[in-house]
């Protein structure tokens, strides 16, 4: 059953991917990217990766379509020369596909417990997590503690990408800096649509609450800072859509966005420095409390919070940068 479901979803994935590449209208391409992301999440779920599927869901449903549309609104929506085949490229691509497919015959089959990837550190993680950290979600344990350096690096990358977007597009200034008529001219929100407005106002608290649940429940079920940050940002994007960007920027001001972006990464790094000051290694949470296991749990809780803050800040700042450019 599982394997048939998987094959089915993967085939759809390939069809949609070809559809994206062949779409003449870029808007169509962006919409198909939405389906691509949904299929990806379903595939991850079928392959027993609940955390990854939740991340794909949070990012794909709430953020990526909105961002791509925000970029597309600033430029013409069509490719100039639709549907021209590039024969050389097609040849190269076909040849490489065949080579990669040939190479896969050496790979272990799907789900083979003897595959090399399952022989290395993974069994150790699965075995030692209950003893050393004592939280049910091994993915969170590996993310926060065993491979904390990695995660810190990724957070810095996200932060850098956010800074890069702000360098290129500029963050909208504080609300006072804009002339009122300038703000009134851009009717870039859905305030006059009553139904989305009422419903959005109703749902935003639930979305934000759910984001907090995902953030702090990450040690017990699928979730964590990355997912929670994306969901929280999606909630604020929804607010920005229905109440106007100006209102949204009054709640989370550009200054606050900066503090969120940098603060999260600093919090993460700060925990590392703190553990060093307390006599442990960098990001060695054992020293944070009397009991090493409690220390580990505290450390993971704090760094996940840092991750969540940075991801929220970066995604929101990127959204506002694109939206402000459109006015």
């Amino acid at each position, binding site marked *: 059953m599982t394997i048939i479901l998987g094959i089915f979803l993967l085939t759809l994935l390939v069809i949609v991917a070809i559809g994206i590449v062949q779409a003449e209208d870029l808007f169509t391409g962006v919409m198909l990217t939405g389906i691509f992301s949904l299929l990806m999440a379903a595939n991850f779920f079928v392959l027993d990766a609940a955390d990854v599927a939740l991340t794909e869901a949070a990012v794909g449903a709430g953020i990526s379509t909105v961002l791509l549309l925000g970029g597309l609104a600033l430029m013409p929506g069509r490719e100039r020369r639709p549907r021209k085949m590039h024969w050389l490229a097609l040849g190269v691509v076909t040849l490489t596909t065949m080579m990669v497919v040939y190479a896969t015959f050496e790979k272990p089959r799907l789900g083979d417990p003897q595959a090399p990837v399952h022989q290395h550190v993974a069994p150790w993680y699965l075995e030692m997590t209950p003893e050393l950290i004592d939280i049910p979600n091994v993915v969170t344990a590996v993310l926060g503690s065993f491979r904390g350096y990695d995660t810190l690096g990724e957070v810095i990358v996200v932060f850098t990408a956010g800074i890069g977007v702000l360098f290129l597009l500029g963050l909208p200034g504080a609300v006072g800096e804009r002339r009122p008529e300038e703000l009134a001219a851009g009717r870039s929100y859905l305030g006059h649509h009553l139904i*989305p407005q009422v*419903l959005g106002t109703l749902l935003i608290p*639930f979305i934000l609450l759910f984001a907090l649940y995902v953030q702090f429940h990450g040690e017990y079920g699928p979730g964590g800072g990355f997912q929670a940050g994306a969901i929280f940002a999606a909630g604020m994007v929804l607010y920005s859509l229905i109440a106007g960007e100006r209102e949204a920027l009054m709640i989370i001001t550009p200054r606050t966005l900066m503090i969120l972006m940098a603060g999260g990464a600093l919090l993460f790094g700060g925990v590392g420095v703190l553990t060093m000051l307390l006599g442990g290694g960098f990001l060695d949470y054992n020293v944070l409390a009397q009991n090493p296991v409690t220390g580990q749990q505290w450390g993971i809780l704090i760094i996940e919070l840092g991750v969540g803050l940075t991801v929220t800040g970066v995604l929101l700042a990127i959204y506002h940068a694109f939206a402000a450019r459109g006015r």
Partner: protein
Amino acid sequence: MTDLLSWLLLLTGSGFVLTGGIGLLRMPTLYARLHAASLTDTLGTLLILLGIIVQAGFTLAAIKLIAIALFLLLTGPTASYALANAALLSGAVPKARLLDDL
């Protein structure tokens, strides 16, 4: 008894979901497709989720499923509204109204 009820809900739900899919594919105009897809979407979804809730009994999972059903019940029609509005805004006039104008 529970099994029978849950079977019934899941089967009718699946029927509605399929009808919606066929309607989405086969209806002749955009607004007809919108109509076919949005109505069956809400009903079929609710029935299937109810069918699972009956199976789950009174657990945390059931509460989550009720929340999912509630949110889908709210967001589905809103999305349809937003979509129809976007279509209308960019000048796609329903066919029936075109006939009236003649």
